[in-house]
């Protein structure tokens, strides 16, 4: 599904960022304000992003990885000019996202996940034509550009159908085509694979890789570890509004390279039993995955497989299935980072902000 995008007839004068970065964020902060109650209204401050700094090189695929509510989307929305930072600065291709909104918007594409955000009552072609006009794509370029993008996202032949009949995967691919209509230098992808089936998600990853191959700078947010590991040159793990780790996938995995992961299949494990595991000083982190009839406990420890018997003892009467000890993956590194950072701080900050 890769293709070379036709260049616009009248391209914007490329701006070489003075600092060599396609995206640069310095101490970005965004706090939301909301109210609770009807008669006795209380003002609540919710810190969504709390001092994020990072830089993305031209042509790099940079991942923002974090749990729901970590601040990924808020960060992206500040970078694409939809939200103002409460403090801090950010530049895209050398342009300030607060002051130079039009210049930034000309140079970026924005793709978000989910079903919404398209005109369902008209065809994919009309959706693309409309946004091509809004992005000022020259009429001579529009036809070839739209054709190339439809080919790239695999919608050729379906472009005249109304979007209301599209599957989620087709909609997602149309979102991507829309975000590339003006041949942007930087593409922001906000959880683009959310809700896609495995085949659709794999095709989407191929599409994302093709963007990088075409020279685009890509900032991708996701909470799928394997997706970040497979695609991203560098990954920033964000938790409770702060970057808690930044590096390549190997760097992040290296943070827990001395650990072993013990996977324990259980049936009807209680919270108390999991609590006993977490309280053990030899245990680094415990993550629970629910399966149909069972729960998989992922226990991190620096003691290697030797700790297995001790863990089984802590689980007491819990019915045990398969037990496996293995090397850590990026997902394990991510779980470790999320488990050991941010939560207490975030809770404390939220409690303190209630005025």
């Amino acid at each position, binding site marked *: 599904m890769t293709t070379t995008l036709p260049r616009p007839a*009248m391209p914007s004068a490329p701006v070489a960022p003075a600092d060599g970065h396609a995206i640069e964020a310095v101490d970005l902060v965004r706090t*939301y*304000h909301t109210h609770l109650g009807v008669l006795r209204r209380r003002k609540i401050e919710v810190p969504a992003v709390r001092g994020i700094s990072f830089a993305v090189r031209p042509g790099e695929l940079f991942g923002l990885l974090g749990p729901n509510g970590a601040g990924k989307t*808020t960060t992206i*929305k500040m970078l*694409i*000019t*939809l*939200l*103002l*930072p*409460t*403090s*801090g*600065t950010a530049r895209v291709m050398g342009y300030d996202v*607060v*002051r130079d*909104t*039009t210049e930034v*918007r*000309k140079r*970026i594409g*924005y793709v*978000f996940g*989910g079903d*919404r*955000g*398209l*005109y*369902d*009552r*008209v065809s994919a072609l*009309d*959706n693309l*034509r*409309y*946004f091509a*006009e*809004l*992005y*000022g794509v020259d*009429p001579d370029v529009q036809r070839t550009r739209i054709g190339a993008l439809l080919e790239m996202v695999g919608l050729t032949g379906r472009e005249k159908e109304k979007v209301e009949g599209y599957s989620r995967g087709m909609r997602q691919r149309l979102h991507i085509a*829309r975000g590339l209509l003006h041949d942007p230098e930087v593409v922001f992808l906000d959880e683009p694979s959310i809700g896609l089936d495995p085949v659709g998600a794999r095709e989407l990853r191929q599409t994302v890789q093709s963007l990088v191959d075409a020279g685009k700078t890509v900032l991708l947010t996701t909470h799928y570890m394997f997706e970040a590991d497979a695609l991203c040159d560098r990954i920033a793990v964000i938790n409770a509004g702060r970057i808690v780790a930044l590096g390549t996938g190997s760097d992040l995995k290296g943070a827990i390279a001395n650990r072993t992961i013990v996977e324990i299949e259980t049936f009807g494990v209680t919270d108390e039993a999991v609590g006993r595991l977490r309280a053990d000083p030899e245990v680094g982190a415990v993550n629970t995955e629910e399966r149909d009839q069972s729960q998989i406990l992922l226990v991190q420890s620096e003691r290697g497989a030797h700790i297995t018997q001790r863990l089984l003892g802590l689980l007491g009467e819990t019915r045990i299935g398969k037990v496996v000890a293995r090397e850590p993956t990026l997902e394990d590194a991510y779980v470790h980072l999320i488990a050991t950072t941010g939560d207490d701080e975030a809770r404390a900050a939220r409690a303190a902000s209630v005025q």
Partner: protein
Amino acid sequence: MTATALPVAAPRADPASLRAAWRVFWNGGRMSYGMLFNWARPSIYIPTLIGGPTFQLLFFAALGSYATDRSPAYFAIGNAVQVSALAGVFGMTMAIANERWFGTLPAILATPANRVALFAGRFLPFVANGLFVSLYAFGVGVVFLGVRLEPSSLAVVGAALLATVFSCTAIGALQGAISLRLRDGLFGANLITMAILLFCGVNIPLAELPAWMQVVGNLLPFTHGLEAVRQAADGAGFGQVGGLIGIEVLIGVAYATAAFFLFSYLERSARQNATLDVR
């Protein structure tokens, strides 16, 4: 740094930007009709904008001529113009407010498109639609209710009608902008069309209404345009009704300007306060 609302997408005057703005106005405006107007499918359009106006004309003509000594043509003309408000007010409300309900507003706001062109272009299809519905209703009036228009008066009637449809669409734009924030867009559009029916001389001459209702009627779109249509249908030329048409256009421009500034304010406010679903 404090979060501060700054000017967004300031229009530029170079030829390429002007051409792009023109295309946003003309092409984008035309395309918005199919994308955003919920009634743009025959199963809704025909009963709502053909069937409804037909029965509205017949109902008020029958009721009015039964209750007063005015001819059915008087009521037919008033309601034939009023049904254009139905298309203009509801259509334009949907054309703006639906951007939020369809989830397309963030994508629109993230484009560098000239906002004046984007906003003004939305008027095109809905003014045309209002004219079409009104001309159809005039046809019903001519065939069934005794409306007679001299060929010499058609141009003046058409100009007055165009001004009226524009101003009704403009108040629809204001309602659409309000609905971006308050959500109950069609409820407000209903109130506006009912207010036009009551305050603007559609079935009861303005002079016969209480004074406060006359004040309201004069501040609403439609009143002066309808009066211009009535006088033109009776044979008045541009010289006699030009002032009324001019006032109607000015009222429309005032509502359209207010709508655009509200839209711009809401866009700036959304960046600052994370409203309009941009959060």
